[in-house]
């Protein structure tokens, strides 16, 4: 924004967060996070699921206590939710049993103001956010967009110093989120909003580039800040402009190079089977190969271009792209994905050929799949309990990641007909015929 000065509103200093695992031990989710939200700016936190971006926002809101480090709010340490910090939630978090007006008034409850003042301020906030006429409606009568407007009005009614937004538009459809974004930006640039700074979390790259003055890109496992990008474009920004695209591409290449780095790092550290697999079902993998193989893309695409027509967030697209990379059906490089020779064959093949090819690549490039198959082959009865692999994985991964990885490899193995899994007996097996 124009007159960004260096007044820090909220500063996170050396924040670390570990959650204790139920089976003992600690699971680090954030490591050494340093963020300063300055007066006059919209700061974006961009990352995929698992990067801890929502946890950072909740720490900044005082809803979660960090394990290490401290949060400064206006120069003093933050120990819990404070006056002047407002949160807008992804799921709106409206009280279904209160009307729009009562929901907005609820934001003021903690201040203990006289009833008339509460009413006046609530009506003013409703007016500002364009909710007039809906005062007596219940949230369930409203569309998603209108509900989020109530969320905004409720956050603004307390006259916050800083507004924290947790993926505020991701639960809305494309058209609705577009209008909400531009309304918010208009109010912000017309200086009609009470707060001095906005900190928002998103997994939508275009949204971040459209709204933010500065974007922090997060890396996962544990969550840490990987890069910082300035967005010097003037508002209102044009999504179709070349310089807008340049920044979007830049973000994509940072994200992909980070992803590939972490894949390679895992390979280097432990050439064993216990590596984290990207959360991408076999059907999504086939879908992406098919799409890339179409004449329109001709085996190669920039992720930014690929995401646009399908309105895919980083959350969905990146894991699938990574899976393709790991399976060597495609190569990820600097924000671009390109099918390999095998990938091109796969795109043209029929169902059975695809399965065979997938199976070959699974055995060759996914050590965990090869390991499971190997164990099953070794055993006389061709069966092995899930628990066995689970405990092997848990030597290197935490329970949730181990579970997720095993679920993904089960899906891949089933699709490739490499092995079977019985959810009732919790056992992997192979058919004698296969």
């Amino acid at each position, binding site marked *: 924004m124009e007159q960004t000065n260096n007044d820090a509103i909220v500063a996170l200093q050396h924040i670390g967060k570990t959650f204790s695992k139920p089976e003992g031990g600690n699971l680090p989710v954030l490591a050494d996070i340093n963020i300063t939200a300055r007066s006059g700016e919209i700061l974006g936190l961009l990352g995929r699921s698992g990067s801890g971006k929502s946890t950072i926002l909740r720490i900044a809101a005082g809803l979660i206590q960090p394990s290490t480090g401290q949060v400064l709010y206006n120069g003093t340490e933050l120990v819990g939710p404070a006056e002047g910090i407002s949160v807008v939630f992804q799921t709106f978090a409206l009280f279904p049993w209160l009307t729009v007006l009562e929901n907005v008034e609820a934001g003021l*409850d903690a201040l203990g103001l006289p009833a008339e003042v509460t009413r006046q301020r609530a009506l003013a906030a409703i007016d500002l956010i364009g909710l007039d006429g809906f005062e007596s409606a219940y949230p369930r009568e409203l569309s998603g967009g209108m509900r989020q407007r109530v969320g905004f009005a409720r956050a603004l009614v307390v006259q916050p110093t800083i507004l924290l937004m947790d993926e505020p538009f991701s639960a809305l459809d494309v058209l609705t989120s577009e209008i909400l974004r531009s309304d918010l930006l208009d109010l912000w640039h017309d200086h009609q909003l009470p707060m001095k700074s906005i900190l928002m979390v998103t997994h939508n790259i275009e949204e971040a580039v459209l709204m933010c003055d500065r974007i922090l890109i997060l890396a996962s496992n544990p969550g840490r800040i990987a890069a910082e990008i300035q967005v010097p474009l003037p508002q209102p920004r044009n999504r179709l402009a070349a310089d807008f695209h340049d920044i979007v591409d830049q973000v994509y290449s940072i994200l992909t190079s980070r992803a590939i780095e972490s894949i390679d790092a895992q390979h280097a550290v432990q050439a064993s089977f216990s590596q984290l697999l990207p959360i991408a079902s076999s059907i999504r993998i086939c879908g992406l190969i098919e799409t890339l193989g179409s004449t329109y893309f001709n085996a190669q695409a920039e992720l930014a271009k690929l995401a646009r027509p399908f309105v895919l967030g980083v959350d969905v697209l990146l894991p699938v792209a990574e899976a393709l990379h790991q399976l060597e059906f495609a190569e990820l490089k600097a924000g671009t994905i390109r099918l390999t020779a095998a990938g091109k064959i796969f795109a043209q093949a029929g169902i059975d050929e695809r399965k065979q090819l997938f199976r070959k690549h699974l055995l060759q490039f996914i050590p965990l799949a090869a390991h499971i198959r190997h164990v099953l082959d070794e055993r006389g009865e061709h069966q092995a309990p899930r628990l066995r692999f689970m405990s092997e994985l848990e030597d290197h991964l935490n329970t949730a990641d181990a579970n997720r990885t095993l679920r993904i490899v089960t899906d891949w193995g089933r699709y490739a007909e490499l092995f079977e899994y019985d959810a009732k007996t919790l056992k992997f097996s192979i058919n004698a015929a296969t």
Partner: protein
Amino acid sequence: MDQNLTLLLRNGWKQRIPGWRDLFAIVLVLTVILLLGGGARQMLMPFTVTHQPEISLSIAALPNYALRTVMRMLAAMVASLVFTFIYATLAAKSKRAEMVLIPLLDVLQSVPVLGYLSFTTVFFISLFPHNALGPELAAIFAIFTSQAWNMAFSFYESLRMVPADLDEASRSFRFSGWQRFWRLEVPFAMPGLIWNMMMSMSGGWFFVVASEAITVGALQISLPGIGSYVATAIAQRNLSAIVWAIIAMTITIVAYDQLLFRPLVAWAEKFRFEQTAAEVSSQSWLISSLRRAHFLYPVGRMISRTMQQIGRARMTWLAPIPGITFSPLASKIADRVWLMIVVMGLGFCLWTLGHFLNHEVSIIDVKIVMQAGLLTFLRVIVLIILASLIWVPIGVVVGLRPRWAQVVQPFAQFLAAFPANLMFPMAVFLIVRFNANPRIWLTPLMILGTQWYILFNVIAGVTAFPSDLLESARSFRIKGWRWWRDVMLPGILPYYVTGAITASGGAWNASIVSEVVSWGPTRLNGGGLGAYIATMTDAGNFPQIALGITFMSVCVIAMNRLLWRPLYAFAERRTRLD
């Protein structure tokens, strides 16, 4: 209704692995029963309740009696609500309290209400000797114990399931504990709580009727009410008076439902958490006409404003109570101390139990009780199987026809609420008339009142059954036995199990009043544990009553743990898609 059912299904039946905490709770409850038994015997002697009004069998007296019965119900409901708010909140907010309170609640649910009526009557009379307040309180307490446990469970479960985003929003807006309770927790729990209140109420009628007229040893109590009216009618062999009582009860229940619960349910609509608009919203003619009455506006506004003010007051002086924070070390020490107290309590209870078994009852008593228990156990199982064979097919047939279901469903709910003990004299009259074997023909009375839970839960299950599944079954021409086995029965299993749980719990309770029945001087004894408890109550043998209740509680708990819980977990696992 469906969403209420899921709320009900959710309650307390999930993943709570029985452990030493449950054992502690069982031992604790049993000890208290036994101690009460011992205490009651000492208290009984000096008291006589004088000035008991004569129960009149004239029809003109009935409205007044009905009103008295209703007042008892209301008083118990208020008490249950207060209990629920305090007990469940404590359990949900304090880990240490939860450790004891929740297993305790689980066990208390399994103790037969009518069994300890004799203790509580004696206890309350000793508190207020020489006037009717004692027995009144005892009756109210009996109804309270039939209602409070599942309400508290429902509220506790809701408190723990408050959606994370609303919890964060309330914290981020810095609601005080008081504001949070009234603005977030109570509204969120409301639909489940009201549904459980209705369920409790259904059971309550049964117990209020049974608790109004009671004989403990030489002590005879009859409180003015429909229950006493029926008891007097039985003593005088007056069949027409019994018919009048049934009519009066029917009117009372319908009125209660229309004037209290329909409005409550319609009002609770707004607390539904689903963010989608309801397709069929519950309606109440009472609420609609009240809303239309203009002269009531100022009154209504005043009430709602006062309520809002109370809910929105900060009450910060309450704040330190829910969130007492210890330093980690102090907290660890407190944990140890608390655990030690619990273990010591357990030790004391075990010692008391041992003492009781050694000195108060003989091994012959134990043997008799076990044999009687086995008989009743067998009866419950057979009755549940029979009732399922009858009502599941009927429920499915009705449920598949929405128009029939609309008519049958409220009727089944009414029948479940109707106190079946009012019908007992009819059955006894017939048994005496045809000289039938009471050991066999008294048995169906146990399930007379609770079989309807199976019917209406099955109907609800079928109504909620996804219509696309039905259509796909039809398009693949799945018929006959295969249709039942592969399509319908797995789909309604969780609902059926919920109904069967309620029915079997009710049957145990009912055995105390149904295994021994009388008609004037004629007394039919069907044998079994219920008959044992009833006979011992008449004789005022408190240690034997305590032994009987104890064994019955153990039977109910065993049945829940070994049969119903695994079955429910299985049903739930099978019908989930994700």
